[in-house]
């Protein structure tokens, strides 16, 4: 599978910069000063949800076995290739909301003009131009990342390995006989 957006929750400051950047990327003009007076107003496809003191940015996970694809009665939701993101075809979508019902993350919504369902399209137009998705680019702390899941997993393994070694070293240094000698 191609790259996907991952979140490092420890780094999210809940600034909601990703929300504005997403809405802007999906606006007509793409310019903040003009988008502010567009009708309908631009809509964000990512939402920072509060979980106690922390914030978690959520957007479509582009699931491998996506329930929204299965449930869609008009086959509006689908993938072009097994590698590509899950997309909604506006011409086919009838706005029945079944996809909202089955989405485990609640990241599909009805558009402001009440015509179609909208969700993260992984900024497919931007990615074609070799740039990152708007939310990833806007994130000031790097909490949002566009990476391959293998790289992500590898990164996590390396971090776990480092922590393991640190804890082993710590335990060796603080052996009871060391303490006694000190």
């Amino acid at each position, binding site marked *: 599978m191609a790259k996907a957006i991952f979140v490092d929750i420890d780094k999210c400051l809940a*600034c*909601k*910069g990703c*929300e*504005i*950047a997403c*809405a*802007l990327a999906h606006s007509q003009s793409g310019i*903040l*000063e003009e*988008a*502010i*007076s567009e009708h309908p*107003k*631009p*809509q*964000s496809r990512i939402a920072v949800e509060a979980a106690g003191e922390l914030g978690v940015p959520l957007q479509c996970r582009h699931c491998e076995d996506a329930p929204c694809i299965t449930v869609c009665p008009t086959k509006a939701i689908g993938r072009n290739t097994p590698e590509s993101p899950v997309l909604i075809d506006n011409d086919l979508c009838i706005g029945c909301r079944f996809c909202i019902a089955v989405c485990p993350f609640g990241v599909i919504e009805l558009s402001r003009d009440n015509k179609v369902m909208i969700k993260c399209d992984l900024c497919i137009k931007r990615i074609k131009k070799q740039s990152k998705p708007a939310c990833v*680019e*806007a994130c*000031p702390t790097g909490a949002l990342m566009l990476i391959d899941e293998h790289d992500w997993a590898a990164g996590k393994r390396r971090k776990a390995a480092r922590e393991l070694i640190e804890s082993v070293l710590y335990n060796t240094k603080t052996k009871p006989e060391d303490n006694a000698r000190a």
Partner: protein
Amino acid sequence: MAPEKRSSDEAAQEMISQMADAGQENAWDRFEAQLPQCGFGKLGVCCRICAMGPCRISPFGEGPKAGVCGADAETIAARNLVRMIAGGAAAHSDHGRDVAHTFKMAAENDTCDYMIKDELKLREVAARYGISVEGRNTKEIAADLSDVMLSEFGKPDGTLISAAAYPPPARQKVWEEFGVTPRSIDREIVEIMHRTHMGVGADYKNIVKQGIRASLADGWGGSLIATEISDILFGSPWPIRFGVNLGVLDAKQVNIIVHGHEPALSDIIVAVSQEPELVKMAEDKGATGINLSGICCTANEILMRHGIPVAGNFLQQELAIMTGVVEVMLVDVQCIMPALGSLSSCFHTKVITTSPKCKIEGAEHIEFHEDRAMETAREIVTLAIDNFANRKGKGAIPKATERGIAGFTSENIFHHLGGRFRASYRPLNDNIINGRIRGAAGVVGCNNPKQVHDYGHLAMIKELIKNDILVVSTGCSAIAAGKAGLMRPDAAAKYCGPGLCEVCETVGIPPVLHVGSCVDNSRILTILSNVVAEGGLGEDISELPVAGAAPEWMSEKAVSIGMYFVASGVFTIIAEPLPVLGAENLTRYLTEGIEKDLGGKWAFEKDPAKAAHMMIEHIESKRDALGINKAAERKLYDMEDRRALAVE
């Protein structure tokens, strides 16, 4: 990013490339690292005023519509805006206060390093402030005037004397009726902070009203005091030739750059830097002399009065250090990038902070006190001379320089227009009325890496003068115009429309008049008042065919300046919008509704040529309203008519 996309100035481009080659970062790099900038901040809908927050209003209407206290986007953006005005008005006015203290010292103390240099102006200003001048000596008048001016900052009752002495009566009436006549300067700034405290004002128009009042206390108060006293104390400017851009630095001499805003120290540096002992000392160290130049408005202050060359404007401060030939960059207050501290550590250049208000990590601090002015100035110049030996390599000075004429003021423009013996604004008014000059525009303000450096100023100014609009300029905008050769008298033939060109060539002025530093925007207010007083162009500033612009603004001071121009009745256009767009009603008020209240309004336009045409359109509409665009009907006079003509 390619240097041409960062600056339109050749010298700047050259230094930007060098910085990139050397791996040194500058304001443009740091700007790019900040992208994309926070949308909430840009739209003005983020509130950090109390600890229930920070709160922000979703600009696209998806999230909460109010902060914890219930403040909506309108309230939040209005509060943020007027707090910017408080910052700007405070900076200008505190500068005014400092020179007022120096003035008082000069008036009271004969052994002081400062003295009254312009007695004529002292008498004129004192008379405006209601101080009797007949039969009194300079010292007495100066002592009284300094006391009255200093009390303007914090007097408990009444309104500003200057707000009644300088503007046209019709303008004063507008303020009175709207309830924004400024009281004491500090009071208006303090009241902004009070009104925007948690749980005070929430009505956006009423919040903006206090911003207007404080901005008027700046333009017609604090800034005006700074200008008037500086003229009295350091001498009124007179047209003077100057050299400008990084090429004014000289590899063979000890280079001292003054940077910041206040003239108090830099004026003394001008005096001591050519003292024979110091020059001798420099020669002993192998230099051919001591070369003084300036950046930002400190530069403008000593340029206007002494013709000291200007090394560059705001975005060239880092580039100047990068040349490697600057022994000392002496800074006072405002617009000094903290980045200078760390950048200077890579060179022999010493950045010296001199104000107790401004210390920067990586800079040396030599505190300047007015009562030891000469002593401190000599100490700093000596330090620069000693540092000459530490210079590494030949340095890299861009060749580009330009020359021009600066030093225009509301007083001396009288003489240029009318001649020495019948000094008058009449020729200016007449030429506006007969349409040779369509009107006038003030193009002022900063640099901002969001626009290509200098391009905004130049594209706008060229478009205006091409359309026969006379331009007055201050601050970093004036420096940009100077660097591009727009302040050379021969620029008229090259860039102007036929009408303006004819006037410039007849009178002998460049089409872009340098009227000083950013506090000297008060000179533009005075010029506008004088034009109204001369007659024939209406009763109020708001009737004049004029417009204002800050095409590369960035500082809070620019917001205060913009607001006092709008509140004085001037259509004012800026490139980067005020951070209010997240508040729909407030934006509409500032760009439309406010005109009904005060006669001026704001506009936002990033394309400088397009903005120039919006100004021209506005100027033409004012000409239409004055009835001076109609071709005057030819009337055949008989003797009866002639007898009825009144003698003026």
